[in-house]
């Protein structure tokens, strides 16, 4: 009964507060807005319903995260309000009893939060009902989906969160603690999903660790097909159930502990340590000299105000840094350090350069999806609120208000104090980063880089946000509503672009972005970044003036008197500052606008899509019309690194390869450059010049007869003017220039690759439906011109002194003219029309393989892997020329390009790699896998698979390039580094199965996505090699190149590969070939039990109980079991060194049918483990249950 009264009063109390309903309203709005903005597009793209049960579940989860702020308020208030309002003696002396008191309050907070979370289904229903999305995006209304998500996600989350936050606040007797608890909960969720699951790939642990179930949903999101997302209900199944049970259990435990520890008693802070003298003496008797008589001590004026401001700043700093806040900061830094030690790529550690470490530490303020991207803004938000409310909560505001300090001193002091805390955070982060570098054995610290990134670039963002948070709290003048407004402002800053407000002039604090590269440095991004920051600093100044005008000194005041006071405070100085700020905003804003919208085109993402759609609408009619074919390009390229400009004059040699005359030439010009007038070597008429959509048509006065030649002269200028909203085009920079012909040079004919591809986008822009990739049996695509055609390439490239320019072909000559260096390149053998130009102050490492020269152009400081790369190139050339055919060029180059990625790109002769690849440190890889060696072998293989054999641009093309390149690279690894090394490499590639993913997919023959091309394809080829023998497989590949390697139509498809493989491998294995390539087959192989006993002869008899099954999964995720009568490898292994699998004692193919079987084999020495398909040759998602440790049976002893 008493518990009920406590509960009733609390519910009534909170429901009378505006903020409670404000949260509800905000949550409805946010849910509605987010689901409309994000999930309509997602649904359109991925092909599930916009109101699919899965979407409802994800939004319910998101709602419980967004609602966390209200939960901290409700729980903190319910737990600590009595103590903070000093009502506790009245409550504690009633005969309620602590159990009823705590339960009533907790239940009320929980129920209120649960009610607020009802906003999510409400918002979702609204989103589904309000017209807008296409009818086919909206699935049937299923109450069970809403109910299930609410019961399995929202309610348990509310319970866990409330229990946790309530307990913290009760035990610490401070509502503030529940905010920190909220921060902690939030980080645990983000940490589980982002780091434990995302980075470490420990999904099982992460699913349990995550108190809100985000990781479970993350797994489903990857593992479910669109059909499943649309139809399956989220309930308490599988890992969600165990997660819920675990966390509700923990929550109950926490509550029980709280009840045990809580005392309904007066709390004396540190009473035990208090000194007895603290009772103090009374005021002295009689007259005492009043010190203030001693003369004028106080001085006033600017100097004093500055001192006072610093005193406030110091006090604010100490308050945050010496309290919980300091701990949180240290925690953030420690977590950052721990995560930064994990810098790696596919498990290969990276050299801990300052560039890498800072990239880890300096997550952008507005990237809440990144762990630290969320922590710091939350920290700022909470402490800004605390600082603004500090005096009033300590009930000191009247005394301070009566002190002779202007409002700006208070405001600025608090801002500087918070700024100092953030500066301290950056200092601690720097120290943490350097510690990580020491820990990882990298002693080139580059402290200057830390300073520039953490203090020069990141701190200003923090400061701008801190100022905004302070201003909001001052203006709103209600703590919780203030928090809410700051959160909304932050959400706008983070998601504004996603919600359609993408211009940096409109989103507080935003900028076009920057990136740092060892080669390129910060340029050219800093100038636009700075201009935008100045602009936002001017806004910040204006906001700060507003805040000082509305500053509440002394007591809470109503809006009317605050406005009246503001008018009075609006002195000439304030007016001057405000005017200056407005003038700055207008001046800088106009300058920025001039750059982003006048000098450059302002385009949103959807503008880009609309551009593509309109291009297709206008010029799609020219798709497939006969055009002359490019056979040669002669270029004169002038790169001016210092001016960040380039000019290209060139001649294209065209020929009519078709049977009919051609009367007009269509020329696609590129938006990144300015293309000047084009000349032909015969009279033409410029029929159309659509510069906006980059299409020109030239009618030939006399048509081009079959076999006839045509020369086209053009000139292209790259002269960026100012900067765009997205910043700078970094193609030409002071050091590290990189651009491709695809991006800059005119191209012949209609450009099909400009078309919108995704079905959803095409529908949205009312374009006719077509497959994303041309179908495998699209015969026309096999005859597509241009794509694979070979050209003779010749170029003279000029660049600044001290730089080396690189282009395809043999370097015929290089010379210096004035202050410029020139390089003359020409190919000896025609190449695909696909090349890039590079210019930087490279160091060149040269080597040879037979008559081929090997050159690595790298940043001088990035020499770690150069020898390794050369060894791999040599081994690769050796193997591929032997197996697949000759390498046509006299040189092979690897050229480093700016960028923090680790990707490489192979084009004929020249293979580019990003800086991140240079940082791979396989020497520190515990697993002993030489990934750079393997990747280089893979890229070299592209000279055959891609440059020589150019597949038709249809489904499966990526199998012919990427899968075959990986397969080839694997052979080189095995041949050079050994069979065991290859096993480790394949094991590493198998890691992809640790990430949950749906089994629904197209067969390999039709594969387009990267998982199939880079992983399943190589696995299939590897399995085939193990089953059929490397000689057979390589012979098939060699024949494929011989037949289709000329680059002339019809171009090769996976069907040609399939035909060659089928011809090469013995008929009994054709079933395997079909399973691997023609269908999306999965083997489900498991060893359930293995036992061994020693026979009288000393040999060992090993018995395996195994289970086998084979299913085919279609693209919708429908599984069909297919009969199995397959050759499966059975293996028995001896004890190995720690971590090693051990020597095989037995490894033979057995024929296995579906079902459970007992297999018995004899081995000569003592076995340790055994299983079926122990090397994971077959596609089996759960590959780790194939082999088991042997349990010794029959009472055998050693």
């Amino acid at each position, binding site marked *: 009964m008493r518990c009920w009264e406590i509960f009733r009063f609390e519910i009534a109390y909170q429901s009378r507060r505006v903020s409670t309903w404000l949260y509800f309203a905000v949550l409805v709005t946010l849910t509605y807005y987010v689901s409309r903005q994000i999930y309509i597009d997602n649904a359109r793209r991925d092909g599930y319903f916009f109101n699919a049960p899965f979407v409802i579940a994800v939004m319910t989860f998101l709602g419980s995260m967004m609602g966390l702020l209200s939960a901290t308020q409700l729980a903190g208030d319910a737990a600590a309000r009595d103590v903070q309002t000093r009502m506790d003696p009245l409550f504690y002396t009633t005969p309620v009893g602590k159990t009823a008191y705590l339960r009533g309050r907790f239940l009320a907070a929980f129920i209120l939060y649960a009610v607020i979370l009802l906003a999510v289904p409400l918002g979702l229903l609204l989103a589904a009902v309000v017209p807008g999305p296409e009818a086919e995006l909206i699935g049937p209304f299923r109450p069970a989906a809403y109910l299930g998500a609410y019961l399995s996600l929202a309610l348990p989350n509310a319970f866990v969160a409330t229990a946790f936050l309530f307990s913290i606040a009760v035990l610490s007797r401070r509502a503030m603690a529940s905010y920190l608890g909220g921060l902690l909960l939030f980080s645990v969720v983000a940490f589980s999903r982002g780091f434990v699951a995302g980075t470490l790939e420990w999904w099982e642990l992460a699913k349990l660790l995550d108190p809100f179930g985000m990781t479970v949903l993350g797994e489903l999101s990857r593992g479910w097909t669109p059909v499943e997302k649309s139809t399956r209900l989220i309930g308490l199944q599988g890992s969600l159930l165990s997660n819920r049970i675990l966390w509700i259990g923990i929550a109950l435990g926490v509550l029980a502990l709280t009840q045990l520890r809580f005392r309904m008693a007066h709390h004396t802070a540190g009473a035990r340590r208090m000194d007895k003298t603290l009772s103090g003496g009374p*005021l002295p008797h009689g007259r005492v000299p009043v010190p203030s008589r001693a003369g004028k001590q106080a001085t006033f004026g600017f100097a004093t105000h500055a001192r006072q401001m610093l005193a406030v700043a110091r006090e604010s700093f100490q308050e945050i840094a010496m309290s919980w806040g300091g701990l949180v900061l240290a925690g953030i830094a420690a977590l950052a350090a721990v995560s930064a030690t994990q810098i790696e790529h596919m498990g290969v550690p990276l050299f801990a350069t300052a560039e890498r470490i800072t990239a880890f530490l300096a997550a952008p303020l507005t990237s809440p999806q990144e762990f630290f991207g969320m922590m710091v803004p939350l920290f700022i938000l909470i402490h800004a609120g605390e600082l603004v409310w500090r005096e009033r909560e300590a009930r000191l505001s009247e005394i301070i208000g009566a*002190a002779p300090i202007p409002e700006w001193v208070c405001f600025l002091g608090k801002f500087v104090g918070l700024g100092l805390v953030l500066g301290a955070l950056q200092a601690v982060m720097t120290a943490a980063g350097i510690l990580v570098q020491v820990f990882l054995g990298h002693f080139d610290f580059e402290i200057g880089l830390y300073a520039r990134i953490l203090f020069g670039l990141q701190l200003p963002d923090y400061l701008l946000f801190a100022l905004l948070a302070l201003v909001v709290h001052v203006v709103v003048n209600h703590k919780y509503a203030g928090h809410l407004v700051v959160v909304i402002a932050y959400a706008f800053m983070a998601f504004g672009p996603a919600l359609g407000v993408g211009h940096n002039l409109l989103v507080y604090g935003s900028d076009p972005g920057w990136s740092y590269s060892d080669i390129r440095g910060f340029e050219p991004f800093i100038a636009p970044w700075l201009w935008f920051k100045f602009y936002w600093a001017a806004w910040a100044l204006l906001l700060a003036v507003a805040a000082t005008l509305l500053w509440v000194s002394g007591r809470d005041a109503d809006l009317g008197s605050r406005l009246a006071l503001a008018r009075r405070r609006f002195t000439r100085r304030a007016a001057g500052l405000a005017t200056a700020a407005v003038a700055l905003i207008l001046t800088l804003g106009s300058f920025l606008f001039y750059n982003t919208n006048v000098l450059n085109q302002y385009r949103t993402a959807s503008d880009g899509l609309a551009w593509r759609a309109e291009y297709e609408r206008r010029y799609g009619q020219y798709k497939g019309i006969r055009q002359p074919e490019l056979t040669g390009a002669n270029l004169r390229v002038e790169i001016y690194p210092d001016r960040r400009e380039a000019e290209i004059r060139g001649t294209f040699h065209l020929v009519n390869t078709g049977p009919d005359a051609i009367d007009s030439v269509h020329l696609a010009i590129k938006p990144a450059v300015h293309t000047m007038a084009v000349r032909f070597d015969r009279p033409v008429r410029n029929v159309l010049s659509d510069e906006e959509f980059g299409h020109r048509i030239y009618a030939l006065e006399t048509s081009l007869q079959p076999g006839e030649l045509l020369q086209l002269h053009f000139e292209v200028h790259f002269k960026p003017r100012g900067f765009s909203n997205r910043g700078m085009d970094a193609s030409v920079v002071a050091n590290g220039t990189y651009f491709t012909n695809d991006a800059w040079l005119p191209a012949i004919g209609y450009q099909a690759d400009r078309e919108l591809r995704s079905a959803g986008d095409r529908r949205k822009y009312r374009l006719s439906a077509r497959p994303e990739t041309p179908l495998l049996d699209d015969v026309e695509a096999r005859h597509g011109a241009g794509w694979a055609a070979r050209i003779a390439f010749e170029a003279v490239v000029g660049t600044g002194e001290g730089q080396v320019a690189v282009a395809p072909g043999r370097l015929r000559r290089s010379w210096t003219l004035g202050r410029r260096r020139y390089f003359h390149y020409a190919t000896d053998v025609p190449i695909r029309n696909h090349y890039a130009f590079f210019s930087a102050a490279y160091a060149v490492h040269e080597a040879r393989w037979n008559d081929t020269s090997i050159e690595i152009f790298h940043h001088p400081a990035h020499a770690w892997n150069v020898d390794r790369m050369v060894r791999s190139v040599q081994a690769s050339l050796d193997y591929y020329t032997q197996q697949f055919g000759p390498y046509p060029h006299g040189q092979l180059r690897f050229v480093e390009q700016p960028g923090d990625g680790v990707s490489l790109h192979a084009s004929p002769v020249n293979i580019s790699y990003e800086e991140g690849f240079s940082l791979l440190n396989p020497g520190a890889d515990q697993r002993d896998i030489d990934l750079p060696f393997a990747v280089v072998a893979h890229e070299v293989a592209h000279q055959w698979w891609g440059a020589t054999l150019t597949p038709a641009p249809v489904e499966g093309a990526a199998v012919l390039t990427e899968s075959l390149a990986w397969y080839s690279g694997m052979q080189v690894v095995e041949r050079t580094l050994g069979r065991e090394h290859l096993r480790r490499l394949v094991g590493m590639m198998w890691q992809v199965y640790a990430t949950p993913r749906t089994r629904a997919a197209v067969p390999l023959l039709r594969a387009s996505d990267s998982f199939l091309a880079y992983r399943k394809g190589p696995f299939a080829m590897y399995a085939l090699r193990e089953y059929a023998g490397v000689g057979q497989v390589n012979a098939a590949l060699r024949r494929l190149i011989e037949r289709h390697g000329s680059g002339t139509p019809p171009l090769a498809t996976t069907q040609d590969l399939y035909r060659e493989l089928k011809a090469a491998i013995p008929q009994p294995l054709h079933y395997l070939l079909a399973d691997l390539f023609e269908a999306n087959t999965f083997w489900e192989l498991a060893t359930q039990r293995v036992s061994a006993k020693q026979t009288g002869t000393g040999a060992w008899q090993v018995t395996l109980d195994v289970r086998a099954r084979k299913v085919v999964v279609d693209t919708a995720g429908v599984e069909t079991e297919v009969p199995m009568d397959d050759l499966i490898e059975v293996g028995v292994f001896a004890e190995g060194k720690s971590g090693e699998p051990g020597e095989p004692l037995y490894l033979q193919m057995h024929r296995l049918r579906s079902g459970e079987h007992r297999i018995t084999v004899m081995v000569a020495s003592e076995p340790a483990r055994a299983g079926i398909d122990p090397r994971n040759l077959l596609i089996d998602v759960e590959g780790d249950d194939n082999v088991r440790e042997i349990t010794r049976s029959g009472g055998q002893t050693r």
Partner: protein
Amino acid sequence: MEIQIRNLSKTYANGVHALKDVTLTIPRGMFGLLGPNGAGKSTLMRMIATLQEPDQGSIRFGDIDVLRQKEKVRETLGYLPQEFGVYPKVTGAQLLEHFAVLKGITNRRSRREIVDALLHQTNLYEVRNKKLGGYSGGMRQRFGVAVALLGDPKLIIVDEPTAGLDPAERVRFLNLLSELGEDAVVILSTHIVDDVSELCSRLAIISKGTILLEAEPLQAVAAMRGRIWQRVIEKTGLDEIRRAHSVISTKLLAGRTVVRVHSTTAPGAGFEPVEPDLEDVYFSTMTGHYR
């Protein structure tokens, strides 16, 4: 230097009419502001202390316009609010130094001296390095006094300062105040009549937002002479007397009730004339019999 308050009015958003056209002059020396709880004392004090805005009216302190030149006022203001807290995790000396800076005492050496002297004077020197969270109520009150005295204030406003003090401490505190009153305007708001009668050279009585009386205590008492009558009765007779006379106060004495009434003529049997005191002035004023 005196304070001139003209036509000050304030109505709160919830409709409470806290001050109604208050006009008041407060000269140098101790000034007592008497009134029951909720009379508008604190509102008036906060307005003088620059912390609250009136809807209408003006306040001048010498040649300073208090409402417009807040900072000028604050440079010479010592304010001890009725209720205040402290930062619990900071020591007394630290917080007092902080306030000293905020009051414009930027010279480190003289700040030290002043802070030490004030700590001595308020007898907090021994506990100066203890955290404020551990201070008793009286110690906190004294700490507030120390803050109010920082920076040689010429205008000292103390709002119900003696509420938390024991009798002996109260006396000493009032002594301290009167000493300061020699050279400054000291406004003391209280509902304890004795505080005023012992110290103040002038007083004002405020009720429901209106100044009922503005006078010198001695003159006010003198003006009441011959008009206050007292009778000791049984409790049961009170109602009848209330009907018949202008009762200004009642109090219990040894189980019986002492009634005081206001009358220009002898009120009749049982009543005897008594020498008036300030309390009689206060209660007469409150009941509307004075003036």
